[in-house]
């Protein structure tokens, strides 16, 4: 946080009067609750709908009456609002109630989408699985950002690091393994990971060794990766003639995939998807449960204090940025060797920025970032599902662009502090110079 920001913050705080954040959130929930009960519930179709848990032939599921559900969620939101202004004895419940209401917005969206379409039922388990799969690069990218920013280096080059991983990995796969052999596929995924690490080490050298403004360093990475992968695609990949091939294949987790109804849908997946969970859990363990993780975090909060205690700030920052890069490289491999088996120019398509948004939305914590990635994955999956269902609001389809823009709108609201303020690590963005 810079001096400008502190100055601006101080000036802003003194000028602000009236409602605090909690009451504003409560008020928004209250208004939404009233709108749901009085406006939406009577307007939507009263015919019964069904959430399926498995694919079509005679699926298990739960049927429901949309207006009843909408009214129930509306009442929940209203109660939350009321609790916010309740006497102090019961106000302790207001926090959990707000959380519950926020979570209830997801079933609300599902109920409304189904009620507004002509389809009587849709498979929700499958929708959740799609959300998780689409969250893979976002969660990995957000973890990249987490490692960098927690150690004090702002990384807006996640997008470029992923793109470089995707392009260089696929190039290796196409030139060595003809994009067909499983052995070379794994080798190429490793190449992607290393390419990500290499690109991140450029970021590290620029921002740590040369003290370049970290935002500029990130932009260098993004522009460079875009040019480099475009160059490699037209000069190498296209010339091999192997523009598509065999990607990673699905497998089921032992025992879990045997669970009736949901097992086959939720516990079958491709390897990088499963690795994403390992990376997130590993990141949490290492960053919050080991001495090295504590050192990383201390470098992001107060590097000079860390140095006084004998932490080698420069080395820790190099290590965390490069570790982050390796993770971003894996995310790149997801694009070119798991989700699809080809490389296209600018294939990551702003996923790195969504990952950054997820990180900020998750307040720079591993589980928060993962939650953000999930939410944004869900909004992507929902966008496709809404088009499939043909959901219409007063005669118009909901544009998929709206759902794609949602992560950015939500994050902007969070950053502006309307709902639970998100504050970055204190030393993120500040170049560190060893004490003489």
């Amino acid at each position, binding site marked *: 946080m810079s001096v400008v920001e502190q100055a601006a913050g101080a000036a802003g705080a003194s000028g602000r009067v009236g409602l605090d954040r909690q009451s504003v959130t409560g008020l928004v929930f209250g208004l939404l609750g009233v709108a749901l009960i009085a406006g939406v519930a009577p307007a939507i179709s009263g015919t019964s709908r069904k959430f399926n848990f498995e694919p079509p032939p005679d699926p298990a599921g739960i049927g429901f009456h949309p207006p009843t559900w909408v009214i129930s969620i509306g009442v929940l939101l209203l109660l939350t609002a009321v609790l916010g202004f309740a006497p102090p004895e019961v106000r302790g419940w207001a926090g959990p109630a707000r959380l519950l209401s926020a979570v209830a917005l997801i079933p609300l969206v599902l109920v409304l989408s189904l009620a507004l379409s002509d389809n009587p039922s849709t498979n929700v388990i499958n929708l959740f699985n799609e959300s998780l799969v689409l969250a893979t690069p976002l969660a990995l990218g957000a973890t990249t950002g987490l490692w960098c920013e927690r150690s004090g280096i702002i990384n807006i080059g996640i997008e470029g690091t992923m793109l470089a991983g995707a392009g260089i990995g696929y190039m290796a796969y196409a030139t060595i393994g003809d994009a067909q052999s499983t052995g070379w596929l794994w080798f190429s995924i490793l190449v992607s990971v290393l390419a990500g690490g290499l690109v991140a080490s450029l970021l590290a050298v620029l921002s740590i060794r040369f003290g370049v403004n970290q935002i500029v360093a990130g*932009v260098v990475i993004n522009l460079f990766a875009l040019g480099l992968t475009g160059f490699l695609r037209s000069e190498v990949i296209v010339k091999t003639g192997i523009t598509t091939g065999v990607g990673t294949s699905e497998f089921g987790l032992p025992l879990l995939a045997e669970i009736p109804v949901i097992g086959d849908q939720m516990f079958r997946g491709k390897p990088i998807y499963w690795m994403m969970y390992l990376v997130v859990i590993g990141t949490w363990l290492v960053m919050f449960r080991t001495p090295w993780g504590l050192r990383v975090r201390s470098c992001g909060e107060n590097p000079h204090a860390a140095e006084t205690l004998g932490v080698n700030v420069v080395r820790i920052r190099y290590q965390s940025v490069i570790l982050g890069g390796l993770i971003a490289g894996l995310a790149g491999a997801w694009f070119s060797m798991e989700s699809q088996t080809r490389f296209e120019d600018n294939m990551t398509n702003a996923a790195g920025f969504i990952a950054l948004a997820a990180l900020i939305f998750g307040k720079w914590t591993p589980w928060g970032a993962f939650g953000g990635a999930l939410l944004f994955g869900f909004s992507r999956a929902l966008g496709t599902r809404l088009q499939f269902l043909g959901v219409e609001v007063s005669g118009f389809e909901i544009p998929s662009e709206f759902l794609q823009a949602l992560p950015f709108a939500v994050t902007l609201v969070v950053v502006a502090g309307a709902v639970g303020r998100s504050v970055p690590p204190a030393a993120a963005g500040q170049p560190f110079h060893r004490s003489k």
Partner: protein
Amino acid sequence: MNGARSPNAGISRAAGQVHRLLTEAWRLQPLYVSLYAILLSFVVGGVLISIIGVNPFAAYWALSRGMVGGGDEIAGSVARSVPFIGSALALAFAFRAGLFNIGAEGQLLAGGVTAAYVGALSWMSDLPGIAAIPLILIAGTLGGAIWGGIPGVLRTKTGAHEVISTIMLNSLVLFGVRWMVNSRDPVVLRDTESTVPRTDPISDTAVLPELAASQPVLHVGLFALLGVCFVVAFVLNRTTFGFEVGTVGLNPHASHYAGINVNRVIVIAMAASGAFAGLAAASEVSGTNGAFQPGTFFLMGFDGIAIALLARTNPVAIIAAALVWGSMLSGAPLMQQEADVSIDVVRIIQALVLLFVAADAIVRYLFRVRESAQSPFQATSIEGAV
């Protein structure tokens, strides 16, 4: 930077010779780093070109003929550079106020779509050009200014950092305009007769007069943006507000104690910054494309960062830096045609230019350039922002 007797000492010595030659021949002190950064990037690019088996001199010869090989090429290069002047000004002005506006990308889109909307209004065709043209330019400028002003307001009211909020606003406006130009049901701004997603063509009266029928067309928008550069130079160097902007950029605390309204400066600087991007987009819509197509603005805002740093945030030097930038892009197709080198090489070279300009320690080390005391671009100008 010590322990200099490394393997590249030979290169370094040769570079030192070049440097001495330049020092004695011309007085280019403030430009060294930028010039060497460009030189170095072309050298690295040349290595890349020779790796794929093409003679780099042949490729660069084709590139330079594509840039300045004839009247049409020169006009095309200038035309390609015009919008970059605006996007670089957007960055430079914010840098001066200690702000990092990476939202020029979005401000261009906001300005462009506003200009296209106003330009295609049915009553625009009844207006004479003398009224319609300023109107479309003002519309674009306002669109950009509003989109640029939002992060400024968020910064002062909530403390949300402008880097984060502009990244979010970039994507928001990108999806917004994509929807506007793609959607057929309902039709928002899409030209339903066109096969590519773009807005309705603007009225003939709102089209900026053409200067040369090059590819892309060189139009009067050039003068609008050149004029803005000089106005900004005047404002920054000769007015109280410009002084306030510079002071806030150097030290907001001191500015606050000196009685400068820091919040006001931040909001105005961000809005002005967006306005320059918006003007650039409006001139593109009105002079070059005749309609708004989101893809044409891809990376223009991020390139603005490189150009602004190449020009050391000096508004007049931006003109030269933008010319270098635009003409490289404009010359690249000929290089691809004749030397069979992918145009992405130019993008790599440009990324390297940004890299070397930002990490000027590399350039100073290789070419033995001393840190000049009166460098207009001191660490403060952007370090304060983040």
